[in-house]
């Protein structure tokens, strides 16, 4: 199952770096270019690279579809709850954590947490779509 040894080796080398770059882009979305969407797509792309190189059966134990679905729901719930917390400080979507020093993790206040939520949601969404295509193909080829 999977591709040749060269592709597997390159994928093993590339996946941690790509995933780390995605997490960096998510966490620094309010300081540098990027944000939840771009970083989330990068994280999902690194996982998809792993699945493409090693085949669906070898990575199924660690990152299966149910975990991705839970992460997707978690991202949306996190976004909602951060937005709802604003109600205690005035209004829905109130930015109650903001500080006026630039290039700091909390310099954008709530924006960092929205970014993390969007990043989790987008990466899980792309990965779920990809893996359900694979599973559907497997189910249709085995018959039943």
């Amino acid at each position, binding site marked *: 199952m999977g591709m040749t040894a060269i592709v597997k080796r390159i994928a093993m080398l590339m996946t941690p770096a790509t995933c780390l770059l995605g997490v960096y*882009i998510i966490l620094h*979305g*309010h*300081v*540098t*270019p*990027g*944000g*939840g*969407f*771009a970083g989330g*797509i*990068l994280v999902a*792309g690194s996982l*998809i690279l792993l699945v493409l190189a090693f085949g669906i059966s070898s990575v199924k134990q660690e990152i299966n*579809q149910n975990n991705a*679905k839970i992460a*997707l*729901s978690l*991202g*949306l719930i996190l*976004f*909602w709850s951060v*937005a709802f917390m604003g109600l205690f400080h005035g209004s829905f*979507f109130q*930015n109650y954590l*903001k*500080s*006026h*020093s*630039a*290039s700091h993790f909390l*310099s*954008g*206040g*709530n*924006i960092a947490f*929205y*970014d993390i*939520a*969007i990043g989790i*949601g*987008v990466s899980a*969404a792309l990965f*779920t*779509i990809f893996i*359900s*295509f694979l*599973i*559907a193909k497997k*189910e249709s080829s085995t018959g*039943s």
Partner: protein
Amino acid sequence: MMIVLIALIVLMILGAIVALESRDLLSAIISLGIIGFALTIIFLVLSAPDLAIVQIIIETLTLIILIAAVLKTTRADTSETVNARVVMLWISGIIFMGLFLLSAVRAFQSLPEFGALGLRMAQAYLDGFRQTGASNLVTAVILDFRGYDTLGEATVLFTSVAGVVTVLRKAGRKD
């Protein structure tokens, strides 16, 4: 910079024409890739790295999926155009081109001079930083000024994934 932009746009137009006219579906898809990657370089030249990151990853994923689909099915473009419809196609094409040119001239006349936006954008960045504290104004607009939009977008993403899983998976079906 203007010359680079014009060269890239001409390359994109050529890629689109080749993608339309080619009888081999694989080369049509590769010409589609030219459009997407040239668009990535245009985003970088116009200093929009946010869009460039998303565009290059989405373009690569889409190309992989399309090439896999072509390799699994057929490589020849088998669509035939009926002779009587060709006249209608030409007429509607010319009418559309005229409307497009008319509205493009109106739209481009109302745009400011190329490169004249610099000071206005700098002022917008300063105002945005004072109001939100985020030094990346794009993220500040997406997640603070237009937070409801992003909430709706995340909900649409969730719904689409639920739809894909419902359509594709056999696990929950009754029969």
